[in-house]
């Protein structure tokens, strides 16, 4: 993986660390984390913060109640089968050496590599694949051909983009594999895929995208995005 330049914001990462983030958003966050030691380090600090805040809570119960609680814990311990240490699950499968390899947790959601995804056409030079998740969150892979714009849109809600393959430019900034982009204001941006190859990204949104450009608006009913 090349250098990652665009990371998860503190606010979003904190929602993940605190356990308040729904499945769809978490999928994009956790997949970036698999690729990015820097953000994992920031996550570690946040989890240590959660631990410290939890430690700071003043316990409030009567000693008797605590004793009863421990006795009930002991009963559970005794019911536990002896020596059955939980070890890390063995995921020693080998991946095809392939720059389209997608890390967990996303890989399980798409059933393997990007090659096997059941792409559906989504307009000219673009294809998409919807990933079902809980709640009102729209998660999909988008695959856009070289030199083509990603569908332009303005939006009311949050939108996360994680690049899995290829590159695009957006407002004079370059985004490549592993880069993470986060929008939640009513911004209009128009990423354009670099001419040297196609771009595949994971896009998570909480509102149907509203296309702005006149041409795209004509396509919107067909695309069902």
């Amino acid at each position, binding site marked *: 993986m090349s250098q990652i330049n665009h990371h998860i*914001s*503190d*606010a979003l990462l*904190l*929602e993940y660390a*605190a*356990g*308040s*983030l729904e*499945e769809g958003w*978490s999928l994009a966050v*956790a*997949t970036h984390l*698999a*690729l*990015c*030691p820097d953000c*994992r*380090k920031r996550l*570690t*600090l*946040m*989890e*240590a*913060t*959660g*631990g*410290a*805040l*939890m*430690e*700071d*809570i*003043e*316990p*409030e*119960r009567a000693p008797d109640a*605590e004793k009863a*609680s*421990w006795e009930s*814990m*002991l009963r559970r*311990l005794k019911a*536990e089968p002896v*020596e*059955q*240490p*939980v*070890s*890390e*699950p063995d*995921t*020693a499968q080998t991946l095809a050496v392939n720059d389209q390899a997608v*890390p*967990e*947790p*996303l*890989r399980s959601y798409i059933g393997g590599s990007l090659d096997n995804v059941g792409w559906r056409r989504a307009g000219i030079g673009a294809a998409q694949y919807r990933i079902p998740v*809980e709640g009102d969150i729209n998660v999909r892979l988008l695959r856009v051909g070289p030199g083509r714009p990603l569908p332009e849109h303005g939006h009311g809600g949050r939108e996360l983009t994680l690049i899995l393959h290829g590159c695009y430019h957006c407002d004079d900034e370059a985004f490549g594999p592993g880069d993470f982009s986060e929008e*939640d204001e009513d911004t209009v941006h128009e990423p354009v895929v670099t001419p040297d190859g196609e771009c595949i990204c994971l896009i998570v949104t909480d509102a149907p995208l509203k296309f702005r450009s006149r041409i795209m608006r004509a396509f919107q009913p067909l695309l069902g995005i």
Partner: protein
Amino acid sequence: MTLCLVRTGRSRDVASFERLFVYFGPRIRSYMLKRALDGPLAEELMQETMMMVWRKASMFDPQRGNASAWVFTLARNVMIDNLRKAKRPQFDPNDPAFVPDAPEPPDSHFEQDESAKRMRQALSTLPKEQAELLHMSFFEDISHSMIAEKTNLPLGTVKSRIRAAFSKLRSTLGEER
């Protein structure tokens, strides 16, 4: 507590585990109570979390963080499974496509000696409004946009305070970046 956790993992020592239970049990229960608002349920989820501590203690690595941080992540995951009944996609360090950490230079020390005590001291240096936001983030089941509504702050302010809080914590803990 870190030592007790290591002993619990290595030798299945019930006395060490009892010390962990006495210390963390009431705190985990209070954490669950804040999110569940139901006493018996909070007790049950605390017991479930402590069961996880017992089962997984051998996987705790003191090089990677302190005991309270580790126990917190277990409590949080029990809370998500049982309370929010949600899935929480997680990265898998054993996954062949996982990008591992670069080897740490020997004097970089966040993971190694970030004792719980230093962490709590650093937290106590935060301005009140930042500390309150962190509290709400961890103890209430609400998103930052809901926090913004509740506190009558623009969402941008909530986010910039969170950013300021962590940049202060990082610099207090000597980890500038």
